[in-house]
């Protein structure tokens, strides 16, 4: 069996033991195909968060997995490492015994929202740098698969910082089962002797997974797709009034703004660049596994990559709100193509052309991401004496050129 078939087999094995949530499982499998993969599962109690976490970890790592439960009293020694007392007593040496969780390829965090902040900080460091520290000693952590789950509605939660959640590549939201699915679950439980997790075989070996991850990393994405992924993330970040640095946040910041009807006005805290990395990884996995990945695939994946990374001005139903924004974004992408924004920018990057500039200005007043690129070109043309500052779109629309766009006074020789 080829490696690709084994990965498809992994999805089949998980789906044969987990009822419903098919798209979530599909995305979860795709997300395993890059090094140091991290997945967060969010759902109310009793929907199958822990089961899904264990199924995927068993399928990928067999018995080489350790699950730390936030519900129990977890100490740092159990998660990171503890001091080897005999070495200290006999030789005066501080030797650290690294915890099984650090050494295991499969790492599970059950009810991560109940994990104490100190342990969470250690795991955060592990996810960020691929290393852990204890007693002044550091160890690199080999490639792993980390799956965490939480019930955000749980009353006994710690509020972990947004950067911690940002380290999770994807966040899956599970739903409860429909009537017919409940019957399916009962049949499955009977079939597997009430133990779905123990019946799960190890489908992919560690070596095979490493090989697959290596191949996925080497996949070259289509320039078109890279462009659309970057554009999608930028649209969820961009703000002509620089909300990232502003003390005043939307909706107050958006009062009187020209772009008030764009999706930027619905986002309080924008996405980090990790959203781009996560989307690129998923796109590469899709190309590797299925031979192609198009814009519609990217929009489907985005629903599992964006919601845990941004804060909305008003949230009624997080997934539905993001889906609505993604639908608007999809139309905007088509509108950009219809207006020939990118061919126009391509023309202008090759040199100033008044006809193209006029059309580009028309497009820019309705598209921040495009306006940002045009403003940069205008700055260049001002320096080249092609354009006067008062003639620019920025001046005429009363926009301010972001301070961080300034070029340094001195260039390194």
């Amino acid at each position, binding site marked *: 069996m080829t490696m690709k078939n084994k990965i498809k087999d992994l999805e089949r094995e998980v789906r044969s033991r987990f009822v419903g949530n098919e798209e979530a499982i599909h995305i979860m499998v795709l997300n395993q195909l890059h090094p140091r993969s991290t997945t967060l599962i969010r759902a109310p109690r009793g929907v199958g968060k822990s089961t899904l976490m264990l199924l995927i970890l068993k399928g990928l790592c067999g018995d080489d997995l350790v699950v730390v439960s936030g519900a129990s009293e977890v100490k740092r020694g159990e998660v990171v490492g503890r001091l080897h007392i005999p070495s200290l007593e006999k030789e005066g040496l501080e030797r650290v015994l690294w915890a099984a969780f650090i050494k295991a390829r499969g790492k599970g965090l059950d009810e991560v929202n109940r994990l104490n902040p100190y342990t969470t900080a250690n795991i955060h460091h592990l996810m960020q740098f691929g290393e852990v520290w204890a007693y002044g000693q550091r160890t690199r952590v080999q490639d792993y698969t980390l799956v965490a789950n939480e019930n955000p509605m749980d009353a006994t939660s710690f509020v972990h910082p947004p950067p911690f959640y940002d380290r999770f590549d994807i966040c899956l939201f599970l739903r409860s089962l429909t009537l017919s699915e409940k019957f399916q679950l009962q049949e499955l439980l009977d079939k597997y002797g009430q133990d779905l997790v123990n019946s799960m075989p190890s489908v992919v070996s560690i070596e095979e997974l490493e090989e697959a991850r290596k191949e996925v990393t080497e996949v070259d994405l289509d*320039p*078109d797709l890279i*462009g659309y992924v970057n554009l999608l993330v930028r649209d969820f970040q961009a703000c002509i009034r620089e909300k990232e640095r502003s003390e005043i946040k939307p909706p107050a910041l958006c009062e009187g703004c020209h772009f008030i009807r764009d999706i930027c006005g619905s986002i309080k805290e924008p996405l980090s660049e990790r959203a781009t990395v996560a989307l690129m990884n998923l796109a590469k996995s899709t190309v590797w596994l299925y031979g192609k990945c198009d814009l519609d695939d990217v929009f489907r994946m985005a629903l599992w990559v964006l919601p845990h990374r941004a804060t909305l001005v008003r949230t009624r139903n997080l997934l539905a709100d993001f889906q609505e924004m993604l639908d608007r974004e999809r139309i905007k992408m088509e509108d950009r193509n219809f207006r*020939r924004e990118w*061919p126009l920018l391509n*023309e202008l*990057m090759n040199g100033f052309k*008044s*006809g193209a500039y006029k059309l580009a200005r028309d497009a820019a007043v309705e598209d921040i991401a495009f306006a940002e690129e045009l403003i940069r070109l205008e700055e260049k043309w001002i320096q080249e004496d092609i354009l006067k500052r008062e003639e620019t779109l920025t001046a005429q629309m009363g926009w301010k050129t972001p301070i961080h766009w300034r070029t340094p006074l001195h260039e390194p020789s």
Partner: protein
Amino acid sequence: MSSEKFRKFLEVQATRSPLKISEDKISWEEKGERTVASQASDFLESVYLGKELQNTVVMERSVAAMLQQRLTEIERENEHLRKSYKILRIVLGGVIVAVILMLLTLLSFH
């Protein structure tokens, strides 16, 4: 500084939808490539012919501008009518008072 991949993206887009550039004019050919999601819904047909609307309504700028203009006109008309209504109420009040006074005067003569 411009990324190679960004330039490549722009070039691919430009190849897919080539522009015709002549002196100060730029034009291109429509390939009818807009997806269903971005096509304008037959909004006016639903308004004038009572046809059922789709779940999501997408309208062309000209239709939106027309609706905007009509809303502004209706608002203006509404304001005008409200003023007339106010004046008519005052006039009616005056007439009622005058009629009552006349009746009282007539009764006092009898």
